[in-house]
C-alpha cells in the first residue's frame, strides 16, 4: 500500500507496542512473534495514535529533538510499518 501523507496514522489493533525493561527497548508484539525496535522507530510509532498525519509526526519529532530534515526517514519508516501491518492509515473525512 502506498503511503498517504494526509491520512492519520494509527497503531494496528492486532499488534502491541510495549517497553521491555529486561531488554531496555520497545518491542512490537503479535501472535507468536516479536520485533525489537531501535529508538527512532519507537519514537515514530508511539506517535501513531490516530490523531496525526505525516506533517504532524514530523513536526512533533523535529521539535522534540531540536532538529530538521527528518521527513524522509520518517516517511520511509511509516511505509515499512504499513507494509508490515503495524500501522493503519485512516483517511481524513
Amino acid at each position, binding site marked *: *500500500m502506498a503511503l498517504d501523507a494526509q491520512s492519520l496514522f494509527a497503531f494496528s*489493533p*492486532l499488534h*502491541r507496542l*510495549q517497553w*521491555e525493561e*529486561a*531488554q531496555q527497548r520497545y*518491542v512490537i*508484539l*503479535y*501472535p*507468536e*512473534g*516479536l520485533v525489537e525496535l531501535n529508538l527512532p522507530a519507537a519514537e515514530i510509532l508511539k506517535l501513531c495514535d490516530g490523531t496525526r498525519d505525516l506533517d504532524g509526526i514530523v513536526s512533533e519529532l523535529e521539535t522534540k529533538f531540536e532538529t530538521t530534515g527528518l521527513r524522509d526517514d520518517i516517511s520511509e519508516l511509516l511505509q515499512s510499518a504499513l*507494509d508490515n*501491518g503495524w500501522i493503519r492509515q485512516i483517511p481524513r473525512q
Partner: protein
Amino acid sequence: MVGSDKFPVSSPRWLLAELTYTCPLQCPYCSNPVDFARHKDELDTEDWLRVFSEAREMGAVQLGLSGGEPLVRQDLPILVRHARELGYYVNLITSGYKLNEDRIAELKNAGLDHIQVSIQAPEKTLNNYLAGTESFEQKKEVARLVKKHGYPMVLCVVIHRQNIHLMREILEMAVELEADYLELANTQYYGWAHLNRDQLLPTREQFQEAEAIAQDYKEKLKGKMKIYYVVPDYYEDRPKACMNGWGTTFLTIAPDGLALPCHEARSLPGLDCPNVRDMSVHDIWLHSDAFNKFRGYDWMKEPCRSCPEKTKDFGGCRCQAYLFTGDMTAADPVCGKSPHRHAVFEAIASARSAAETGETKPMVFRNTKNSKSFSG
C-alpha cells in the same frame, strides 16, 4: 561445567506453558510425549502464577498457553489475567474444541491477546477422523467467533500425507474464515508422529507440489494474510536452527512442572531436567545442568565441531540426533554432512513404499489407552 568458553547466556523470550496433557482430541501427530499418561501430577494455579512471574522477570515476553488442550484448565482466566498484568503477550494454542462465545469473551476480558485454532483438515470427514472426534463444524464456528471478538485470528494446520493433497483447499478455507495468519506446519517427526511416520510422511513430490501452491497464495494474499510455512526438514540438506539454539530463547514448562529447553527434551535420557517445584526459573535457566548442556559449542562432536555453519544451526535438533543415532551429541542426521544421513533416507523410502503399496500399520491415535501401553 559447560560455558567454560564463556558463551554468553541470553535471557528467555518465550515461555511455553503446557498446562495439561489432557485433550479430548487424538491427533496421531501430537507432540506430547507418548507416555504422557504417566505424568499426572499437574501444577496447581499458584505454581503457574509464580512461574509466570519468575520467567517474566528473566525477560520472557511471549507466553504460549498450550497442552494438551489448555481449555480444560478451569483456572485459565486467572492465569491469563495474571500473565497479561505482568506484560506478557498471551497466546492461547487450542484445538477450539468446546470453546463457546461466553468463554471467548471471558478470556478477552481477562486480557488474552490471541487465539490460535488448529484445524486438522479442510473437510469434515478427514478432520474428524484425524482429530478422533466430531469437531469440524464447531471449530469453524470458533474461528468466526475469534474474529468477531477482535482477536487476531491464527489458523494452524499440521501438514502430513493424509492432508497434503488438500493444500489448495486448506488455503481457501483460511481465506473463507478471514484468518490473519495461517500456519502451515509440516509435521515434525517426534513422539506420536514418529510412531506414525510411515503413514504421515509425504513424498518429495507431494512436498514440492504443496509448497508451490503455498508460495503462490503467499504472493497473492500479501498484505491480507500472513502465511508461515514450517519446512519439512527431512527433505532439506541442513537442519533447522532448533529452538534458536539450546537455552537461548525458549523455556517450556510441562504440565507436571518439568522445565525443558525444548518441548521434546523430555525424551532425552539422562538429561535430568529440573522441576519448577524444586527450583526457581532463574536458577533453572542459569544454573541447571540440563539448560547448560548444549549451550554454546563445547559439547559438539565432528562434523559440527569444526563446521563453519555451527553458529547458524547449532548442529540442529538434539532430539532428532538422539532418535536417529542414539547419541544426543551427534549432528542432526538431516544434515548432508552427517554420517547418519542414510537413516533419514531410509525413513523416507519406508514411508514412500507404504504410500505406494498402501500397506501400512494402522495409525496409533494419541489417547490415554495407547499412552498407557508406552508408559511401562
